C-alpha cells in the first residue's frame, strides 16, 4: 500500500466533485489550472472520470442528495486515493450547519486526508494544501 501511494505523488490526477457548493470553490479549483497559477506544472491534471483519479477534491456542504451518491462514488474510486476537502462547507458545513438539507459533515461520510479552509480558499491556498499533502504522504511512505 505504502509503495503504491508514493507512486501517485509524481503526477497526481485530480477529480473534482461538487456536493452542493455555491460554485465558488469549484471555480477557484479551475482557476488553479489556468495560466496565472498553472498547477499543471506540478503534474496535476483534472481528470474527467473518477476511474482516472488519484486525488478527490471535494467542495460543498454535502447535502442529502449528494451524501448517498458521494459514498457510492468513493467506493468506486481505484484505491489508494487521497481526499481533499476544499472550503469551509466541506470542512464543517460552514454557515449551512443549521440547514435542514445538510445532514452530516463530509468526514463523517468518507475519510478525508487534507482540509483547505477558506470561503472560498484562494488558489494559492489550494496549491499550498496540495503540496503539503504530497510532502506529508511522501515523508510517511
Amino acid at each position, binding site marked *: 500500500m505504502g509503495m503504491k501511494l508514493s507512486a501517485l505523488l509524481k503526477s497526481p490526477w485530480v477529480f473534482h466533485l461538487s456536493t452542493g457548493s*455555491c*460554485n465558488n470553490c469549484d471555480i477557484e479549483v479551475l482557476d488553479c489550472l489556468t*495560466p496565472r497559477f498553472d498547477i499543471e506544472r506540478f503534474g496535476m491534471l483534472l481528470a474527467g472520470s473518477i476511474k482516472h483519479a488519484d486525488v478527490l477534491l471535494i467542495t460543498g456542504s454535502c*447535502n*442529502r442528495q449528494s451524501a448517498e451518491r458521494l459514498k457510492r462514488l468513493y467506493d468506486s474510486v481505484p484505491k489508494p486515493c487521497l481526499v481533499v476537502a476544499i472550503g469551509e462547507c466541506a470542512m464543517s458545513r460552514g454557515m449551512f450547519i443549521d440547514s435542514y*438539507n*445538510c445532514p452530516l459533515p463530509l468526514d463523517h461520510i468518507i475519510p478525508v486526508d487534507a482540509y483547505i479552509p477558506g470561503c*472560498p480558499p484562494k488558489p494559492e491556498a489550494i496549491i499550498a494544501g496540495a503540496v503539503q499533502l504530497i510532502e506529508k504522504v511522501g515523508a510517511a511512505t
Partner: protein
Amino acid sequence: MAKTILPIGPYHPLQEEPEFFTLTVEGERITDIDVRVGYNHRGIEKLSESKTFDQSTFVIERICGICSTSHPFAFTRAVEDIFPMEVPERAQYIRTIIAEGERIHSHLLWLGLAGHFLGYNTVFMWAWKLREEILDVMEILSGNRNNYAMFRPGGVRRDIKPEDIPAALRRIDSIVPTLEMLKNAVIDDPVLHARTKGVGVLSKADSIRYSAVGPTARASGVARDLRKNCPYGAYDKVEWNMIVTQNGDVFDKAVVRILETFESIKIIKTCLDHLPEGEIDANITSVPPGEGIGHIEAPRGETFHYVRSDGTNRPVRHKVRAPTFMNLPTFKATIVGETLADATIILAAIDPCYCCTERMAVRDETGRTLLHGPDLVRLSQEKTERIRREMGAEPR
C-alpha cells in the same frame, strides 16, 4: 429510427455543478430533453429567514459564488422597498461598481468555459487569464476575490478608499487591449463560426414565450435590461449602451456577453471617476412590517427577491428567483433537433447556474401547489434525521 435515452450526470465533467440531463436521441439528433436539478439544494431561503436582516446578506451571498453580488443587491433592494427608503448616493455608486465588476468576471468565465466546451482551450486560458486581472481589481476595491460582503440593507459595508482608485483604474485600463484582442479573435474566428453560428437558435417568439431573461433574451432581439428599463443604483447617471443582437444562436449569445464586458468597463470607470462624496450607509436600525420586492439585472438576467417583514429583526418570508430558473426551459426550444455534438455548448449557452436555481415547490399537473413551505421543511427534517441515523450519526 430507434430512440435512445442518454443520461448525462449528475456528476460529470461537463459542468462544475451537479445536474442531471436526460437526452432522448434518434441517431445523432436530439428529440427531447429533461433536466433534473436539486443536487445543490441547501435550504437558503429557510436559513435566511432564521438570520437577522444584517446577517442574511452573508448567507444570500453564498447562494451562488459567481452571482455573489447580484443576490445581496436584490435582497437589500427588497428590504429597502419595505420602508421605502433612499440609499446614499455614494453607496449607490459603490454598489454599481461592484455589480459591474462581477458582470465582467462572470462573462469572461462563461466565455472561457464556452471555449473549453467547444474544445478550444486557447479561448479558455486567455479568458481566465484576463479574469484574474478583474479579480485583482475587485480585491483592491473590496478586499476579496469573490464573496465581496459589501452589501447591507441601507447602504454598503465598506467604503472604496480614494487612494485605491488609481491602482484599480490602471489595472482596468491594462486589460482593455487584451480584451479587445480576445473579442476580435472570438468574433472573427472561422472555427467558432462553424461551431456556433446557427446552432441552438432561440427565436424571438420563443424567447418571449419562455420568458427568457438577460443575455439569453437580448441575443434573441428582446431589448430588455433592467439597468435601462427600470434603472437602479447609478445606472441612470452614467452613459452606456444596451447590447442586443438578433439571431439567438450560441454565437450571438457569446457576442452579447463579450460586448457587455466593454460596457461594464465603461460603467466602472465612469463611476470610479465620479464617485460622489458623502455617507455610505443610511444606518437603518429596524425594518417596519410590510413586504418588498427587489429586482436587478444579474450577469445571467433578472434576479428577483421578495421579502416580508413583521417588524422584528428577521424576515418572515424570503423568496428568491434566479435568472437560470427562467432560462432553463428554453432548452426545449434550442436543443431539440440539434446534433449530440452540439449539446454541450447549447446546454452551456444560457450560462446556467444551478445553485442559484435550487428552490423548491411541489405542484401537480394543473399547477396547484401540493406541498407548501412548512410541509417541505417538515418532510425534509424527517428525511435528514433518517439519513443521519443510517449513516451512524448521533440523533439531534
